[in-house]
């Protein structure tokens, strides 16, 4: 039953992504690429690309998109419900205790502890994306001759305009998208 599998997978993604949108990336990667093989590495990056250019949280975007790719419109809806359910349940439980005791020291202490690990997990998912952008794949080992130098330059431009001019992600996507459309069409 594909719908049930999608619901369970995305429920897990929602349940274990602490600390905002990007925290869902490593979980999406693990569930959708490695555990079920529903999407390819390339599709994963495409989902992220589209998410950066559309409104809404990354995990919702990813759930809708991947669900649609795997099992059509109903798959997209089921996945989106799955990724949102943990929030609906847990946030209301937390809110209940918060309004009752107006303190969440323990919960916040645990979150403080999880945060550094989440950074590491995002870095790990980011490495897959970085490798794919630079070498065309993310399997070790990689050869120096495989480097896509155009991609290296685009990457450097992206970092530069974000750090120097505080460019937003969507501006980075527009710049690299137009540049890619022009440069790759002529080489």
């Amino acid at each position, binding site marked *: 039953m594909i719908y049930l599998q999608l619901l369970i997978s995305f429920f897990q993604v929602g*349940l274990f992504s602490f600390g905002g949108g990007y925290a869902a990336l490593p979980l999406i990667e693990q569930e959708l690429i490695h555990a079920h093989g529903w999407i390819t590495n390339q599709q994963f990056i495409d989902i992220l690309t589209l998410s*950066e250019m559309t409104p809404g949280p990354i*995990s919702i975007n990813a759930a809708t*998109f991947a669900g649609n790719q795997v099992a059509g419109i109903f798959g997209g809806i089921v996945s989106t419900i799955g990724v949102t359910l943990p929030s609906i349940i847990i946030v209301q439980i937390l809110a209940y205790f918060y309004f009752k005791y107006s303190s969440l020291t323990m919960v916040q202490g645990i979150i403080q502890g999880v945060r550094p690990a989440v950074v590491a997990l995002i870095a790990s998912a980011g490495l897959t994306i970085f490798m794919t952008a630079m070498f065309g794949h993310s399997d070790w080992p990689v050869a120096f001759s495989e480097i896509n130098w155009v991609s290296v330059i685009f990457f*450097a431009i*992206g970092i530069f305009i974000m*750090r120097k001019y505080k460019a937003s992600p969507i501006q980075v996507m527009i710049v690299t998208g137009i540049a890619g459309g022009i440069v790759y069409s002529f080489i």
Partner: protein
Amino acid sequence: MKKKELYKTLFTSTLYLSTFTFGGGYVIVPLMEKKFVDDLGWLDQDEMLNLVALGQSAPGPIAVNTSLLVGYRMAGVPGALVTVLGTILPPLIIMTILSYIYMAVRDNVIVNNVLLGMQAGVAAIIVNVVYNMGSRVVKQRKAIPILVMLAALIAGIVFQVNILWLLFFSALIGAITTVWDLKKETDKEADQ
């Protein structure tokens, strides 16, 4: 305000915010503050900040969690469901449409070239996010968070340890240090 009107305002506000906010939780939260504190006057600044902190303490997207809390605060469980619906509908509709366009045009040469260019852009965005988050951890100048980050990095990348174990152990460390800190505080108070 009548119940029905309250639900309607909750729904339209969150629908509007979710449709026009690009870039996730850190962008939408300040806009929610403006809407619910300044425009509608439903919450005061402190209360809103508490709800934001609470939303960040739970798993899941911050935008969904925070709007859910505003709905819950204003109109209980039905309010929470209304705001969640308002928040997830726009991305659900937009991504569904995009997903079909994607399937139709993914193999087009120019589309492929544009996406290939954007791939480097996405890599830059993620590296930038990791750098910002990582330097925030390092700047606290506390040994335990930095060690947890390094250990999780090695465990995740080199040893491919399951994500859930990494989250579980770091949560455990968070719980232990919280108990430790609370104990130290009460000991100090007892000494005085």
